[in-house]
């Protein structure tokens, strides 16, 4: 499989990465090089094989329902590019 430029643009949009028009051919070439590298996998017989969900046999650990965290606004907001009144600020989002 290979991707066309419209697909590259769509992927970039989904990944929220701005791509200039002049970058598209180059990106397309690189992505197609990788896709052709992985193409051989299509020939592998995976009939009846379970996809891997965890690489080591372990049970999901659970924690008790206790409040052990929070009340650390300063830590949460310490690296914020823009904050006010302990809120993170972003350009207005219109629904």
């Amino acid at each position, binding site marked *: 499989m290979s991707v066309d430029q419209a697909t590259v643009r769509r992927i970039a949009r*989904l990944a929220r990465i701005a791509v200039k028009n002049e970058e598209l051919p180059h990106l397309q070439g690189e992505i197609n090089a990788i896709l052709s590298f992985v193409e051989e996998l299509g020939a592998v017989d995976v009939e009846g094989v379970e996809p891997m*969900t965890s690489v080591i046999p372990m049970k999901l650990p*659970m924690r008790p329902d206790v*409040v052990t*965290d*929070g009340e650390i*606004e300063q830590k949460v907001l310490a690296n914020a590019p823009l904050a006010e009144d302990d809120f*993170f600020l*972003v350009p207005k989002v219109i629904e």
Partner: protein
Amino acid sequence: MAQADTSRLIKGATGDWEVIVGLEIHAQVTSRSKLFSGASTEFGGAPNSHVSLVDAAMPGMLPVINAECVAQAVRTGLGLKAKINLRSTFDRKNYFYPDLPQGYQISQYKSPIVGEGEVLVDLTPDRSIKVGIERLHLEQDAGKSLHDQSPTMSFVDLNRSGVALMEIVSKPDMRSAEEAKAYVTKLRAILRYIGSCDGDMEKGNLRADVNVSVRRPGEPFNTRCEIKNVNSIRFIGQAIEAEARRQIALIEDGGTVEQETRLFDPSRGETRSMRSKEEAHDYRYFPDPDLLPLELDEAYVEGLAAHLPELPDAKKARFMADYGLSAYDAGVLVAERETADYFEAAVAHGGVKRDAKAVANWIMGDLAAFANSQSLSISQTLVKPAQIADLVDLIEAKTISGKIAKDVLAIIIAEEKEATPSAIVEARGLKQVTDVGAIEAAVDQIIAANPDKVAQAQAKPTMIGWFVGQVMKATGGKANPQAVNDALKRKLGL
């Protein structure tokens, strides 16, 4: 299950239509801490105060699941008579939004913790439907963006980010707004009985995405629209009706319904498209590699099942069988667990067996009227089950009449919250007069004083009511009405 019932069809310009409704309920799981972090779930903290570094998606932070949220989901599944999946997985639903810090929501897409189940929904005392449950899964709530703090910026608060939600997906088994409302009411009752969600819709702890489509009776399903985030039972009903009308008008005009997400605007009573300028969503679900599959065993599920409280259906059946209540009365009493408990406490108070129907009538009648007038639930009124029990006993023993009993209840509510009805009756001399001699004396007196009325009554026996009133007045309302009636009939020769 639900077949076309002509009473539920909607008349269009070109014939009858059937509305098809399915619901996705998002119920906030009752837990102290979040689904994957130790931050508090408490409502209404200072901005970003109930936020851990995990909830804020700091680099390198990892989720660890809360055992209680898992237990709550399983309990709810049991309450919905649903299949508990002993192995379920968590997936990431990827999309960008400022109140979604990770850039993905951890949810259960492919393998939910709970599979198919059903809810019995009573519509009238003699008509009920079964609404199928498709699945229940656990997922993270998002944070909140405030848009009214500034003209140019949105303010993001992550306090809700990561709070556990149960998404309960119904099958498209409802055929009217009424059925949908009844289903949500019942589901809410079940959640509240179990204690897995408080059902507080004002706080957004229970909200619904409503799927609506219309069709000609007997035809296959049509394209549906999803109305997002409806947050009251009344609005769910209004949204369904508005959306069904819109779709019918659209089709009858020769148009077609497009699958889309819509919003209900309660002030205008209509739904509107949320169609964003964005491309179609592509959530790129895949198993969350930070979590392992959630594996439960039978013993764990059985342990939770053993401690499940009696649920509304079972309680209703028991109230009918044990107390001889009608389906309607039992249904009303079990709608809230606290009311049902109140009823049972009143019936059994003092270890005495008393008339359950009479107790039910008091609770559903005068007490409910008072509670409603104050916007309280029965259990929130200060009237105690023991007081209702005493009241019923006093009537049963003919110590007071029903009329006096109402007055006694009013006295309890208004003045003497702690007093027993017996003490009030005693202190205020409200005891019913059953002494036949005294009643007859009063009757004789009234007859003697009103010869003209006697003649009228003998001609028109319904006039006896006037005499009863006079005798009651003369005895301060305490005379036994039956004894007064008997004496009057005898003396007037009726």
